């Protein structure tokens, strides 16, 4: 770990302005991802801005019938919120499928969205990784790739985004509210928030330098049956091999997003029109242009079977 300086921000706009002043500065929320990465020198911020005291820990109703989730709301509290459990079951289930009780007590909404990949080569500073050191190469390609992306990958990076929560947010069409160093605020659709790796896998989101997340908003509830299936080798405390978030309406229409298959929560809206026809039909568009490796092609079968069962359950 490199030495760093530390301060507490007093307002979101000030936090953003401060971050812009020190290149490489990071906000620290729960610290459950950032501190691990700093210990391993995968991230080496010279300066940390603690954003825990900004009062962004509330979940409020919005004027259009949705919810505004403060950036610092803990994963535990979000999963347990009555409104979330009632109207956005997929989100509560996704959160509870992630990490462990202790981690969820610390982990925050914004931090969870911004957690970084679990690619083992990214974690080993002795190995080449374009995400960690742009231009150095990608060790996972041709290496151990069982957990890596099967769609949307590039020749520069085949990492996945590890979040469960973000997959549910994607299926719910959440929006990310931010404030920039110049004090201007904006809303970013979750669909545009996470990036595919392309030739710049180190650029993971639409956030600009210093831009600070203040909240995530959910549109008004859409009803339907909410499912979150997370498939993993052990029963708990493991990242998803794949996960399927779906909201299925009584008429068989609905939405689906996937975790564990791409550099971002994976959703293809035009595939969803085929949901009433069953999983196989959806897969053609959902997984179009998939480029699995021999070690991870099973993920495609796994997605299809899981989705298929989810659709059956929803109909039953």
């Amino acid at each position, binding site marked *: *770990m*490199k*030495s760093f300086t530390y301060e507490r921000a007093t307002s979101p706009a000030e936090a953003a302005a401060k971050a812009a002043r020190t290149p490489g500065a990071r906000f620290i929320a729960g610290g459950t991802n950032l501190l691990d990465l700093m*210990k391993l*020198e995968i991230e080496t911020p010279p300066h940390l801005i603690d954003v825990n005291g900004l009062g962004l820990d509330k979940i409020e109703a919005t004027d259009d019938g949705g919810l505004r989730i403060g950036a610092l709301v803990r994963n535990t509290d979000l999963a347990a919120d009555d409104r979330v459990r009632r109207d956005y079951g997929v989100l509560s289930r996704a959160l509870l499928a992630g990490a462990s009780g202790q981690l969820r007590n610390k982990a925050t909404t914004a931090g969870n969205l911004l957690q970084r990949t*679990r690619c*083992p*080569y990214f*974690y*080993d500073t*002795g*190995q080449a990784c374009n995400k960690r050191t742009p231009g150095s190469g990608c*060790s996972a390609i*041709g*290496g*151990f790739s*069982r957990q890596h992306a099967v769609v949307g990958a590039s020749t520069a990076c085949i990492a996945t985004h590890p979040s469960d929560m973000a997959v549910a947010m994607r299926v719910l069409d959440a929006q990310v509210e931010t404030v920039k160093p110049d004090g201007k605020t904006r809303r970013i659709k979750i669909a545009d928030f996470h990036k595919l790796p392309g030739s710049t896998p180190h650029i993971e989101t639409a956030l600009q330098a210093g831009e600070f997340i203040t909240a995530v908003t959910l549109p008004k509830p859409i009803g339907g049956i909410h499912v979150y*299936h997370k*498939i*993993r*080798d*052990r*029963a*708990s*405390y*493991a*990242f998803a*091999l794949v996960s399927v978030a779906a909201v299925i309406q009584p008429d068989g229409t609905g939405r689906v997003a996937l975790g564990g298959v791409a550099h971002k929560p994976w959703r293809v809206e035009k595939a969803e029109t085929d949901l009433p026809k069953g999983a196989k039909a959806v897969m053609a568009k959902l997984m179009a242009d998939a480029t699995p490796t021999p070690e991870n092609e*099973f993920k495609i*079968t*796994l997605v299809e*079977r*899981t989705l*298929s*069962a989810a659709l*059956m359950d929803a109909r039953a």
Partner: protein
Amino acid sequence: MKFDTPATTNPIDQLKVVGKPTDRIDGPLKTTGMAPYAYEQHEAAPNAAYGYVVGATIAKGTIAALDLSKAESAPGVITIVTADTVGKLDKGNFNTAKLLGGPDIQHYHQAIALVVAETFEQARSAAGMIKVRYTKARGEHDLEAIRTTATRHKDSKDSLVGDFVGAFSAAPVQLDVTYRTPDHAHAMMEPHASIASWEGDKLTLWTSNQMIDWGRGDVAKTLGVPKDNVRLISPYIGGGFGGKLFVRADAILAALGARQAKRPVKVALPRSFMFNNTPHRPATIQRIRIGASKDGKISAIGHENWSGDLAGGGPEDATQQTKFLYAGANRLITTRLAVLDLPEGNAMRAPGEAPGLMALEIAIDEMAEKLGLDPIEFRVINDTQVDPENPARPFSQRQLIKCLQSGADRFGWDKRGEPGKTRDGRWLTGMGVAAAFRNNLTMKSAARVKLDNKGVVTVETDMTDIGTGTYTIIAQTAAEMMGVVLDKVVVKLGDSSFPVSAGSGGQWGANSSTAGVYAACVKLREMVAKSQKFDPAKTSFADGKVTSGRKSIDLGKAAGVSGMVAEDFIEFGDLGKTHQQSTFGAHFVEVGVNVVTAEIRIRRMLAVCAAGRILNPKSARSQVIGAMTMGAGAALMEDLVIDKRHGFFVNHDLAGYEVPVHADIPHQEVIFLDETDPMSSPMKAKGVGELGICGVGAAIANAVYNATAVRVRHYPITLDKLLKDMPQIA
């Protein structure tokens, strides 16, 4: 005391303290955080500086350039240890690769430097500033690819009995299959850690080590100092599983760092180093052939095993149990070793038998199915009460059939269905069974017993408690022998200034170390009796008193003001040669396999063990459930994945190397059959800590087969290996 005739009745047989389920006497210290582990010996070694290890990032080659300049001038840095600063360094007898590499590199994360600084953070930060340029050399990293180059290791003996090839080809029913087990990490909770302190040319090392005397010898040899100048202290150990049988880089680098810094230095290996820096259980390829008559009698059994290790290392002999477990007149059992450029392999819980039974006990299941026999019946038909290679040698005890049959009753084995036919909602369920087998090893073990004038008995031995419960069984043994309650016994372990014990390994620790304490107590009893002019043969020790005829005196009084001290050891004669001594068990497992996703979840596990006298049923049960859990890991998830291009284990953290969590292990039951083994020691005990893992993996594999009708022969059994054969979902 030499143990060379079968044990007769002795004071242990009273079973007033021994054999009773007993809470561990060190439990309160551990649960309150008061038991100082190696890295926490702040009081013993105040003012310790912090060392942080730098590991190589190539598998094989040399260091072309090592730039320490930035690190040396970083804040707080006191000194940096490298191969260049330490002079000539030898290698321990138990190490394959050097513990400090450079300029030659033998494996990934081989230590190449230790940065010593005032704080841990400073040492770690400076370690990151060291720049290394390597010249890579080509290496072999793929056992499969070089398996044909494997040779017989000098210590491996082929077991060739009768005419295997002829008998196998003539057998009406044949099985010829190959199984694979991957490399495994010990993944104990406490990483390797040490504090070193020099006083003149005398070194004290607080370390986390299972085998004090081996360690002491290897530290001395590596550093080139007399063994007498080295003291090892290891009272508490946060798990080892074989990973701490040997001295590792933390200890040697702490010693070198302390010498260079001229003050105590503490070093803990970072978690990621557990995988590539310290030894692991090597992967195996195992071909098993079984030929049998139609009624299920085995006529030919063949087990060929391949593993790899660094040059100079040894094999993972997965055939050990096959030599003893089943009858069969014609036998071919061989083990071959290839040279691999991977981190060194070595012992991990039940070396040999653990991976060996993962294969053999699937093969038995497969063969039973071919024969149309229940797998328990097939095992019963082929049971043997003598060493199959040498029928003149009987087993000292062998209750395998009883383990299997009583376990079957308890588990409801009769409810097992046809493969792939039992459904519980979205889950296919199945049951599996496997035999458990682990040889009983014995080791010379010494102890010193002191009796003071208050009747307190203090035991000193360099034996270790690696979380197994050794403190408690030693206290029970001394209490039984001296006729006192447990509270009157103090146990001091893990210090090389105490008499040399068996140490903790190979599940020999419990039996051998308590037998050593027994021997010392026999001597002490004689001293006490003689001091009162009692005939030792007619003297009893009970309720804190020594009694002979009508004369009785408090033990403390008998000890006199200055107390008494006795020291002795147990050593073992030929009973292990005349009698095959082994421990047996049966594992039963029920699993559910998700019909949609092929996720495998264990539903319940049962182990029935016959392993001699169980000294403390409570800690023995803990050992077995822990071992069953580890077996579940081996069956379903543990897999050190090799990057075959770069020659290292990729998933070198506990996020990537998954071990079972609570949710994976819903229900476990352990039954110990009544058994005393007079051939094993005066304690009539054997060991259970390794027996518990033996066979678990195969029982799970067989249960998965029973659930799905899909046979996976390549561990771990993960869902991707089942998925394409799972039923269609309508």
